[in-house]
């Protein structure tokens, strides 16, 4: 029973994540797209944590930990990309 | 339809799409994106084709994939360095137009 709940949660979060794609397409600014990346990062962490419980694989929590750290670094690398407004 | 089949089909599709992108795309960076996606597809392919042992996916295949991932990122990093320098020298981000005889 818990297994089903966990599985459904994963599916829901994945769909949630894919919904964020719309924001990437729509923009309109680079910041909006970065926000979508933020969404992907936090959602992926949750998915991994749930998968760890679901599949009984504790190592996936470490993967989630990595994602948490690296999400920030990607954002840092993002900041400084020219925003769309300035582009000629 | 098993999970393995699903990933196998997806990997082949991404590989084909990557080939298309690598050849047709104009911007070098986009070619590199295509190349990296092809690489990921091949890695998924390796793991799924190798099958599973009682203790999870074939450990040899997993090791090959790890090696492949590191090689891919090294090659990508070098390619990016080359691309940036090329851009600085020529102002070009594309390989279109042939190198010409004169």
């Amino acid at each position: 029973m818990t297994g089903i709940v966990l599985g459904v949660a994963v599916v829901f979060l994945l769909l949630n994540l894919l919904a964020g794609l719309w924001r990437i397409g729509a923009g309109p600014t680079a910041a909006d797209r970065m926000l979508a990346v933020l969404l992907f990062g936090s959602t992926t962490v949750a998915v991994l944590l749930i998968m760890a419980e679901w599949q009984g694989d504790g190592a996936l929590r470490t993967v989630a930990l990595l994602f948490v750290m690296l999400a920030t670094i990607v954002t840092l690398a993002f900041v400084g990309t020219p925003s769309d407004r300035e582009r000629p | 339809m098993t999970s393995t089949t699903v990933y196998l089909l997806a990997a082949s599709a991404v590989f084909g799409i990557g080939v298309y992108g690598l050849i047709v795309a104009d911007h070098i960076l986009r070619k590199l994106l295509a190349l990296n996606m092809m690489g990921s597809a091949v890695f998924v392919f390796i793991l799924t084709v190798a099958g599973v042992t009682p203790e999870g996916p074939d450990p040899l295949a997993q090791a090959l994939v790890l090696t492949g991932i590191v090689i891919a990122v090294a090659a990508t990093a070098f390619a990016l360095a080359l691309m940036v320098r090329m851009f600085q020298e020529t102002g070009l981000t594309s390989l279109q137009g042939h190198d010409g005889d004169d």
Partner: protein
Amino acid sequence: MTIGVLVDVLLALSLVGLSLQVVTGRALFRDLVLFILFGLLIALSWARLGAPDVALAEAAIGAGLTGALMLMAYRRLAAGGAADVSPARRRPLLALPVAALAGILVAIIGLSAQGVERVPDAAGTLVLQELSATGLGNPITGVLLVFRGLDTMLEMAVLLVALLGAWAVLGAAHPGRLHQVDRETPLVSALLTTVAPVTLLIATHLLLVGTDAPGGAFQAGAVLTGCGVLLVLTGTVRPRAAAGLLTKLLAIAGLAAFALIGVSALALGRAPMTLPGMWAVYLIETAMMLSIALTMTLLFARSRALGPEQR
């Protein structure tokens, strides 16, 4: 496991859709973001396929590092005035046949792979049988360091070649001012004081458990790279014009340690690449981790060396 299959189908479809978008898109920045998402989903796929070792590496290297490298390169191009939007493709003559060929390729590969049946005595099974003799608990580390050490050593050579090649095309010895984040923001220094130590901790953890559990030198090195990238992006360390001896020694450490121990087996009358004991495993893994981290950070910063800011 019907929900499981549903998750798999969802992931697989997203992968295909994303790759299609990235390849056919026009706005580069948008497609870079999609590529990063692609990397995240691939990592999730590894988790679904039951390969946590690979998922770790993909999270750190495939999704994190590759994405950051691409972004940095994009910023360097943008700073030089390169346009984001690629011109409309002028090559329909090329695109159509290539698409057709790629489609055939997909069909052939996808269909043929269905026919593959696992051989009962595949090398992977042998790895599991022979693992106990190596003293390692993680079969993947066993393959990487003991059974197929040559691959791993040459892989370190690939990393070194990437670094030397990047140095060769770096151009005149100018470190340049790197794009960086404004450090006036208090949050950034908070980030430095929390995340940087945690990365070190996790890297050490991954390195140590790698012999018996998911983890190892590559994952640890990639995490450590994350720390280095953080320091570079926040301007805590600055590019230097010339590499000192320490930088060079660290860059070759992994390859040198592996090669040295691999050859010294000859003196003991064993085949080359034979490791003399567990200490060698730890030594090589530590050296590889440091080399990977330094090499990737330098490639990221596009510089020959890094050092604290000089005032």
